[in-house]
């Protein structure tokens, strides 16, 4: 069919154009991080550097006072990793409670909490800051690690996933004398690994990239995560037009999540199939 051929070429043309627009900023950013300041200022626009140099990265790493980028990245790694591990613990035990334990008002309670959690987040930001302040967590990693554990979205996913696991598995373990803790740990936990991996990945990425909240709760340059740190860079390097160093810092900040995507790509895509609520 002729139209099928035409539409195929149109599809390719469109996808290649889109891909080029999507990828060129990244390439240009990476390339510029390897250009000297003189070249940036004098040569003008060029996609790739005339001379590849690493001076920008040396300068970035040397600055440990006003823009301690390695420190920021370490802070982000600590925050995102701890948050992710705690998310996995909390959503799996809570999901077990709401799908496997029998107690009065269980589902009413669950859906009440779920309903409340749809209340727009913007309203609770200011009081949340006050609570973090009372807990003494301003300028500490806990300000970013703990509040996100209260969310309902991932618990909903885990609960849905657990409903697909036959209750007979629990019952035969119970007959053998297993307690709830034992069933949770030995029967359910191994079976819900796929959903925990996906929830963990998205929690990590979400925590790493969070911007509004860290900008509010961190004022100490040494304590902040890298997303909040980069906001300061516009004033530190941007004012002196140190474009190469700006780019280098941005590139360093995105390497960890890129690596995660590279190694766990299939889980990112499989997330869609777990989310049965939005499947057509």
């Amino acid at each position, binding site marked *: 069919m002729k139209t099928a051929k035409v539409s195929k070429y149109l*599809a390719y043309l469109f*996808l290649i154009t889109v891909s080029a627009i999507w990828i060129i900023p990244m390439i240009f950013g990476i390339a510029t991080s390897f250009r000297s300041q003189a070249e940036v200022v004098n040569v003008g626009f060029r996609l790739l550097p005339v001379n590849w140099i690493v001076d920008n990265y040396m300068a970035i790493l040397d600055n440990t006072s006003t823009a301690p980028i390695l420190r920021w990245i370490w802070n982000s790694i600590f925050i995102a990793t701890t948050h992710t591990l705690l998310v996995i613990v909390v959503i799996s035990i809570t999901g077990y409670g709401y799908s496997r334990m029998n107690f009065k008002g269980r589902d009413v309670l669950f859906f009440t909490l779920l309903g409340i959690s749809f209340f*727009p987040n913007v309203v609770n*930001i200011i009081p949340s800051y006050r609570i973090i302040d009372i807990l003494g967590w301003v300028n500490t990693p806990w300000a970013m690690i703990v509040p996100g554990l*209260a969310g309902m979205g991932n618990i909903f996913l885990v609960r849905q996933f657990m409903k697909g696991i036959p209750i007979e598995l629990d019952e035969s373990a119970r007959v053998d004398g297993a307690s709830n803790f034992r069933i949770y740990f030995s029967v359910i936990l191994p079976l819900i690994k796929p959903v925990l991996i996906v929830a963990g990945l998205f929690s990590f990425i979400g925590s790493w990239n969070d911007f509004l909240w860290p900008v509010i709760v961190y004022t100490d340059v040494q304590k902040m995560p890298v997303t909040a740190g*980069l906001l300061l860079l516009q004033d530190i390097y941007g004012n002196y037009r140190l474009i190469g160093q700006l780019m280098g810092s941005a590139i360093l900040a995105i390497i960890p*999540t*890129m690596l995660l*995507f590279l190694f766990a790509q299939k889980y990112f895509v499989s997330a869609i199939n777990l989310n049965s609520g939005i499947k057509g």
Partner: protein
Amino acid sequence: MNRTKYTQWFFIGPHMLLFLVFILVPSIYGVYASFTRWNLVSSPQWVGLDNYKTILFNQDSSFYHEFFNGLKNTLIFVGISVPLMVIIPLLIAVAIEHKDVKFKNFFQSIVYIPGLISISAAALIWSLIFNTQLGIVSNLFGSEFAWSATQPYAWIIIFVITVWGGTGGNMIIYRASISNVSKDLYESAEIDGAGPIQKFFHITLPSIRFPLIYTVVMTTAGAFNVFGQPLMMTDGGPRESTTVLMMYIRNLAFSHGESIAGIASAMAVLLGMIILVISACQYYVMNRNAA
């Protein structure tokens, strides 16, 4: 058997505590604070509807102008970015799912990757693209002004970075649901002589209506909370023409001077109510039309 009667609290108790402290209490307190004069430190003083009256009706007050300017800019952002973030991902998903197109996962990854980059890192990279002397855009189009300080270009760069970062997530959702549509439907439509465009409107779109509703509602709610893109790309300028409501709320509550958390809370409640009402309307309208 008292022990088993309370075991559920071991499982749901810890999260319940977190939920109370970090969702329920702050949400209630956020509404309460909107009726008070509060500086975030001392205890709030009840002022009834004063904050709302000031924000909504007192034309002499700077809060009135901030609120309506912020609301206007937020609505501009929502009104333009949401259609873009639904239509562009949908087109890309349709193109990737074209039956003769190869390298599907390659194209998908390229479009998805920017979604994994934080807004601050993305903004630094894009500020280079739009840089007056060095950037691709100025050299390509020969423009010699600062994009971030000139309208409508300030808005354009905000939309560009938003679409760049936000397309991948919706695209994957659409792609997954398009690939689930039965091939028989398309084949029988072809036999009836339907072209690609007819197939798209009569088979693809109706078949993916639930993911569409979901993404429209979620994208809209997210867009109302816009903050990072204008802060990083334009710092709200030129002349506060891209300062969105979230930026005013943050400045009032957390900037260096005296905190005006009561007014900020009232603005947050108003923004929250707008989000709730619009989400509910979208869900209702789209669900009914799709049924």
